[in-house]
C-alpha cells in the first residue's frame, strides 16, 4: 500500500452532486442522485465501488464519463483516458458487426492507422484477452457470455485508456466464467498498469479484486478505505450489515494477518 500512495492521482472527484430529470406535476424537476461524493483513484489502483441497487453506483460512473450531464462539483479524469466495460456484453457489443471490426473501431475513430496495423493490433488484443484469431470473423451472437465479455474488455483496452470503469462486469455471467473474467481483468490490469473502477454489489468479488473500497448508499458515501480496513474493521453500521449479509460477518474484528 505504501507504493500506491506515491502514485499519481488519475481521477479526482470532489463534492459531486448529480441530478436526473424527473417528471413532477406541472413540469420537470431534478432528482438528486449523488450527494457530495468525493474520492480519488490513483494509477494502478483497483478501486472497488460497492452498494445496493439504486445507491448511485452506475450514476457515478455515468457522471464520470459525461453521460450524466447535470452535475455539480469537480470531476477530473484523464482526457480521453476513460473506457468502460458494461454489465451485459450482449447489449454493449454491436450485433451487426464482427468481432474484428469491433476491436478496430476505437482505432478507426482515433484515425491514422493503416488497415494492416489495425488488423494486427486487433489480433494481438484478441490473444491478450484469451481468444484465438479465428474469433475475428464471428458475430457477437455467435459467442458465449464469457467470450463476449472478453471481447468487450479487449475493445475497452484498445482505447488505450488509463482508467477502466467496469460496471458490474461479471454480474451477467455464471460463476465459473465469472472467475475466469475476473482473473483476466486482474492480469491485464497488472500487465498494462491501468486503474480500474470496479463497480459491484458482490463483496466477495470486490475483496478479491480491489485494493481500495468505497461503500455507497442512497447516493452518499458511507465509508471508504483500504480494502482490509473495510472488511476487517468496518466503522459504519451499514458496512457491517452488508458484510454480514454477504456471509463475511465472522471476519469483522479479527485483525489477523490482514491488519
Amino acid at each position, binding site marked *: 500500500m505504501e507504493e500506491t500512495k506515491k502514485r499519481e492521482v488519475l481521477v479526482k472527484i470532489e463534492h459531486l452532486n448529480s441530478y436526473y430529470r424527473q417528471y413532477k406535476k406541472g413540469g420537470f424537476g431534478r432528482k438528486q442522485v449523488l450527494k457530495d461524493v468525493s474520492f480519488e483513484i490513483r494509477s494502478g489502483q483497483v478501486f472497488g465501488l460497492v452498494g445496493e441497487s439504486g445507491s448511485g453506483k452506475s450514476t457515478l460512473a455515468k457522471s464520470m464519463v459525461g*453521460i450524466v450531464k447535470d452535475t455539480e462539483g469537480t470531476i477530473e479524469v484523464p482526457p480521453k483516458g476513460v473506457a468502460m466495460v458494461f454489465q451485459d456484453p450482449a447489449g454493449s457489443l454491436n450485433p451487426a458487426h464482427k468481432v474484428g471490426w469491433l476491436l478496430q*473501431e476505437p482505432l478507426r*475513430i482515433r484515425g491514422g492507422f493503416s488497415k494492416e496495423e489495425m488488423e494486427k493490433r486487433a489480433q494481438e488484443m484478441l490473444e491478450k484477452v484469451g481468444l484465438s484469431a479465428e474469433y475475428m470473423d464471428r458475430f457477437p451472437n455467435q459467442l458465449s457470455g464469457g467470450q463476449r465479455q472478453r471481447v468487450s474488455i479487449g475493445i475497452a483496452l484498445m482505447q488505450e485508456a488509463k482508467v477502466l470503469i467496469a460496471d458490474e462486469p461479471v454480474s451477467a455471467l455464471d460463476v465459473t466464467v465469472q472467475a475466469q473474467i475476473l482473473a483476466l481483468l486482474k492480469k491485464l490490469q497488472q500487465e498494462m498498469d491501468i486503474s480500474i473502477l470496479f463497480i459491484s454489489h458482490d463483496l466477495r468479488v470486490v475483496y478479491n479484486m480491489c485494493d481500495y473500497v468505497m461503500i455507497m448508499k442512497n447516493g452518499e458515501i458511507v465509508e471508504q478505505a483500504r480494502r482490509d480496513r473495510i472488511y476487517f474493521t468496518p466503522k459504519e453500521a451499514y458496512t457491517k450489515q452488508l458484510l454480514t449479509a454477504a456471509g463475511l460477518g465472522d471476519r469483522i474484528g479479527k485483525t489477523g494477518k490482514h491488519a
Partner: protein
Amino acid sequence: MKKKRKSLNFIIGAVLVGLMLIMVVWGWIKTPYDPNAMNTALKFARPSLAHPFGCDNFGRDVFSRILQGVGNTFIVSVGTVAIGTIVGILLGGLCGYYGGWLDEIIMRCNDVIFAFPSIFMALIVISLIGPGKYQVILALGIAFVPSFARLVRSEFMKQKNRDYCLAAELMGASSLRIMFVHILPNAFPVILSSVIIGFNNAVIAEAGLSYLGIGVQPPEASLGAMLSDAQTFLYKDPLLCIFPGVVMALMILGFALLADGVSEDK
C-alpha cells in the same frame, strides 16, 4: 458455420423476381419487335409463334410491349423506392436519434404528407410538375418518404438507448458515425423487408398513375398503361388485359414472397 435453410417463400419469390429481372434486361437489350411499330394487318392478332402474346389494337406486338413495360415499371419502382428509402433513412434517422424539437417539426410535416393517400399526393405533385416517367418517380418518391421515415425513426429510437451506442459514444465516435455506421446496420433487416413491400406498392401506384394517363406517356409502354388501353377492348380481346395483368400480378407476388422470406430469415 451452419447456414440457415432459406424458406420456400424466399425461393419462390426469388425465382419470380429473377424472371422479372430477366424480362427487364431482355427488354433493354432488344425486344423481338419494335414495341411501338404499328401494323394494321395484325390488329387484334391472336397469339401465334411469331407473336406469342398476340397484337393489340394498333397491331403492336404485345410481348415486346410487355418487355418494355416491365422495364419502365421497374425503373419507376426502383427510383421511387430509392428516393423514399434514402430520404426516409436520413429524416427518420435524424428524428429518431436526436428527438426533441427537430423530431417534432419533421414528424409533423411527415404527418401532413401521410394524411393524403399516396396516389392523391402523387397527383398533386404531378399537377405541379407535369406528367412523365421521371416526374412520376419524383411524385411517388415524395409520397413514399413518410412511411419509411416513420419506420426508420422508430427503429433508431429503439436502438439508440442500447449500450453499444453508449459504448461508441464513449469511444469518441461522432453522432453521424453512430447513426450510420453503428445503428443503421442493425435497422437494416427491418428496412429491407419494408423496401421490398414498398417496391410492390410502387408497382401498383405506377400502374395506377399510368392507368390515369399521367404516368409513362404513350406510345411508350408500361404495365399500367397497357391495362388502361386494353380496358376499352375488354370484350373484343380479353387477352390484351390478361397478359400484362398476369405479369404484374406475378411481379407483385414475387416481391411479396421475397419480403416474407427475408423477414422470416431474420
